[in-house]
């Protein structure tokens, strides 16, 4: 499993993550920020544990995030 950590409150809603990993990210029409699908919220941080197969796409999402608020913790 890999872990995706998302600091949602700092999201500027640019849409880049949904382009890189469309299955894992979706823009909220409610507040214009991105949602990390299947995540659990702990205080202001959203965390999702997903399969290895999603590593590459989410790493790209993390690299492309202009706000630098997506962390992808590697395969174990």
């Amino acid at each position, binding site marked *: 499993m890999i872990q995706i950590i998302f600091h949602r409150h700092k*999201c*500027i*809603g*640019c*849409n*880049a993550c949904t382009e890189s990993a469309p299955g894992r990210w979706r*823009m*909220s*029409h*409610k*507040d*214009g*920020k991105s949602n990390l699908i299947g995540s659990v919220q702990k205080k202001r941080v959203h965390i999702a544990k997903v399969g290895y197969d999603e590593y590459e796409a989410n790493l790209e999402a993390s*690299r*492309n*995030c*202009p*706000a630098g608020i997506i962390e992808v913790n590697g395969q174990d």
Partner: protein
Amino acid sequence: MQQSIEIMAPAGSPESLTAAVKAGCNSVYFGIEQLNMRARSSSNFTLDDLRDIAKRCKEANVKTYLTLNTILYDHDLRLMRKIIDTAKESGISAVIASDHAAMAYAKQVGLPVHISTQANITNIETVQFYAAFADVMVLSRELSLNQVKSITREIEKRKITGPSGELIRIEVFAHGALCMAVSGKCYLSLHSNNASANRGACIQNCRRSYIVTDKEDGHELEIDNEYIMSAKDLCTIDFLDKVIDTGVRILKIEGRGRSADYVHTTVSCYRQAADAVLNNTFTPEKAQAWKNELSTVFNRGFWDGYYLGRKLGEWSDSYGSKATEKKHYIGRAIKYFRKAEVAEFKLETGELSIGDTILITGPTTGVVRFEVDEIREAELPVNMVKKGHSISIKVPERIRASDKLFKIEPNEIHLN
């Protein structure tokens, strides 16, 4: 000559907002949430802050403008409407927009609209087009004063009025950072870091120095002019009479990413200069004194922008600020004693002596600056204190616990 000039100040934080109001601005502009051009660099306010900002500013007779000027995607529309609805309910004076969806919605709900610099207005027909939505428009920063003047004259001649029925009022940038691209329409930051300037996420890589590599032999050339993409900062104070003579009504100061002391200094200099122009007491000597004062706070060196008809930009020869003064954080206020007009501070770092100039900033205090003439430690007068000590100082106006204490020192690198 006109009756009044509105000084519009940037408010990127509660400290800057207070500093702007105290320094004598007529209006402030600020962003909330993520749909503004400083989504990344300033500590933006939230929807919950709007009512308080509107109330505080109304009491001080200062108008409040909310920036909602990024490009908007479909997923932003609901938030855009929520921001405009909340602004309207909270009593915000106007919204600064560049996207047509935001203009149309604000008009629909009856919130006045100002056209943002992101709309790049450069001609009278465009003014006429936007007149259906807005009473106030900022012109593109790339116009010359002659071009500005011809637009304001034509507005009067054609009697172009906005939704209020009044003639369109024209606003221009008077001071602050300039962009290497046409007023913010830049792709550099998006290209290199996927961080779009047009979504308020500019990483300002134009401000750095670059090396050109010869692809054939690999030789690297450091570009002689060093910071070829980093424009110097706009400063119009020494020809503010000419700027006001064009018929503009509002002077906007750039800098939502800047500190409270920057906002205080720029607003008070332009306030005094604009008043001097209106009273016919503006002189080159006074202008030079204001310019010297402006150079004490953040700047990349000054130039007159495109207003006087220069074809090419003037580029900075260094990274970061050329301010002639630097402020060092040294501690925090613990308590203010109202009757004695004395404040207690805890010195966390550095030292403080009698004769030093200090700056105190806080969300409600704004900016207070003065020279220290007496320091007391445990009620006994001392000449100098070092970090770790608690001291009391007489302060010229009320400050608050947790306000930050800075020491002002000359920035020797930039003193010639």
